[in-house]
């Protein structure tokens, strides 16, 4: 494995991503101002700065370890299905309130059944389970626990 390949592996990219996050966090921490007593050592930015420093040191140790290792440590497997789940979930959350619980959840369950290959060859069972899951959790949250779920199209 050459150096470029080493740097591209996800076990290395992830700590790099965390390094970037830590840098944003540290920049924001340095802008925190104490409300009283000036910026003493134990002010509100003390802990964030301390944690950022610890994080940098630990991430560098992790990065060095990952770069030295030849094999990919994370278990293999396609990212397509998890990505589809994330996209479906993001759309569900975005539509949850505008569409209401029932239509949004029906759509979400259909999407998940398709992603997880559940009952795709038996449309009647597919439809039954979609409705059953939506109804079951409506009954649990709204019926049993008295939670107000978003109504259909924000209306009724």
């Amino acid at each position, binding site marked *: 494995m050459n150096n470029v390949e080493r740097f591209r592996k996800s076990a290395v990219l992830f700590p790099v991503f965390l390094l970037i996050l830590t840098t944003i966090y540290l920049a924001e921490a340095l802008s925190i101002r104490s409300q009283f007593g000036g910026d003493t050592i134990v002010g509100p930015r003390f802990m964030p700065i301390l944690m950022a420093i610890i994080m940098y040191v630990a991430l560098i140790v992790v990065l060095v370890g990952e770069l030295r290792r030849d094999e990919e440590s994370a278990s293999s497997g396609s990212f397509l299905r998890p990505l589809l789940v994330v996209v479906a*979930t993001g759309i569900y959350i975005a539509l949850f309130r505008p569409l209401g619980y029932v239509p949004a959840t029906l759509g979400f369950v259909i999407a998940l059944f398709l992603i997880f290959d559940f009952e795709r060859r038996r449309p009647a069972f597919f439809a039954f389970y979609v409705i059953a899951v939506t109804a079951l959790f409506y009954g649990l949250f709204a019926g049993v626990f008295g939670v107000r779920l978003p109504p259909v199209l924000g209306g009724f």
Partner: protein
Amino acid sequence: METFISFLGGFGALLSWEVLGFMIAGFLIGTFFGAMPGLTSVLAIALLLPITYTIDVVPALVMCASIFMAGMYSGSITATTINIPGAPSSMMTAVEGNALMLKGHGANALGHAALGSMIGGSIGAILLMAFMPLAAELALLIRTPGKFSLVLFALVVIIIVDKGAIAKGIVATSLGIMLATVGIDVLQPIPRFEFGTELLVEGIGLMPVVIGAFAVSELLVQAQNWNLSLEGTLERAKALRIRRRDFIPPWSEIRQIGFFTYIKSAIMGYSIGILPGAGGSMAAFVAYADAKRSSKQPEEYGYGSREGIAAAESANNSMCGGAFVPMLMFGIPGDPTTAIVLGVLVINGLQPGPRLLEQQADLIAPMFASLFVSALILIPLTLFLFGPYFIKIVSIPRGLLYSSIAVVALVGSYVATYSIFQMFLALMFGVLAFFLRKHNYSVVAMLLGFILGPDLEQYLRRSLSFNDGNPIVFLTNLDSLAFLILTVVFAYLILRKKPKLDAIP
């Protein structure tokens, strides 16, 4: 004595239909989640966390305790029948239980697992009730620098327990602490890391972190490993015929194991439970290794040792009692389940600490009673009633199961605060936890860092403020010094000791 009477009153609270119903429902949910490979009792409690907003604190805590006990026991079901531990703490049971299963003694193995769980869980609950007042007395003696050193001790133990990935443990714990710094400062009324949005001024709640870390990330992990199907194994297991009478272990076998083994393993499990981050897996492993070392029939280990099952199951169920001690007295959860239970307490306005026992023992006593009743009555009863159908129950199609979990997790993260933003946070933390898990960073360390972060910061800054920023206060204060020495000793003991490879056959 007063406290003891309050604890006895906890059993009275279980006589209420509502509380009893939640305990039984929790136990059945915990059994299902514990038995199902890929699902854990932690996930069950995480999914039910939002519901605790809508019910009283007593049934919520009672339900959490019964899920915890059930999840710890039921991991042994699939461990024995299909050699896949339903929970990591049932790893040793899988070794011995499945060997017995292959010899045609599967029901007998399940019976021994249930008996060990029953005895261990009951002893753990009794020890919890017996030593809680003493722990409360000790907690009263600890001052602010000591509290900092105690929280530090907990975090250090959580990090070094995974010896192979200490740097990753530090990253995960630090990440949790950093997330906890978002929102209003712990000592001054100024917002931090709100990035110009009002949504983050109040900080990040426990719920989206828990739902994301345990439910959404599990969904993503399962989605990635979708082709590794269990259906074939489950189909074969479904063909097994199990009779109820075979579940009852013969007296001769129990005598051969010896009550000393059960009691010793339970005490070990309870003690390990008190340690932060150790958990049921370590309890089961240590008790199993000790039972093997002192066994009269060590040659049976690896080929279906009933004694091995008894020791492992007794220890991991007893751990449940121990794990509650640091959480209730110091606000330091020993494992993810008690971390979520801590969330339930805080949601309901209860502050962990010695005063909790003094002033609100009536609220936590039913939880202790639930642990005891779940172990002593519900474990054997569930095995007897549902034992022959366990495999059919866990054969539910995974597409249906995980789609349902997704709906419960997301709607659950909405119902607590009626906030779409919380749902987005749950998704975001789910993706983050997915990558943490894929690259062997401990999600539990992140969660415990998130929970303990505010205490760590508060005690550190208070101690330094009172001493003009001089850190020597942590060495001159006796209780702080004691915890710092304890931290060094534990770090030395854990890091020095090489794992005994021969402990696992």
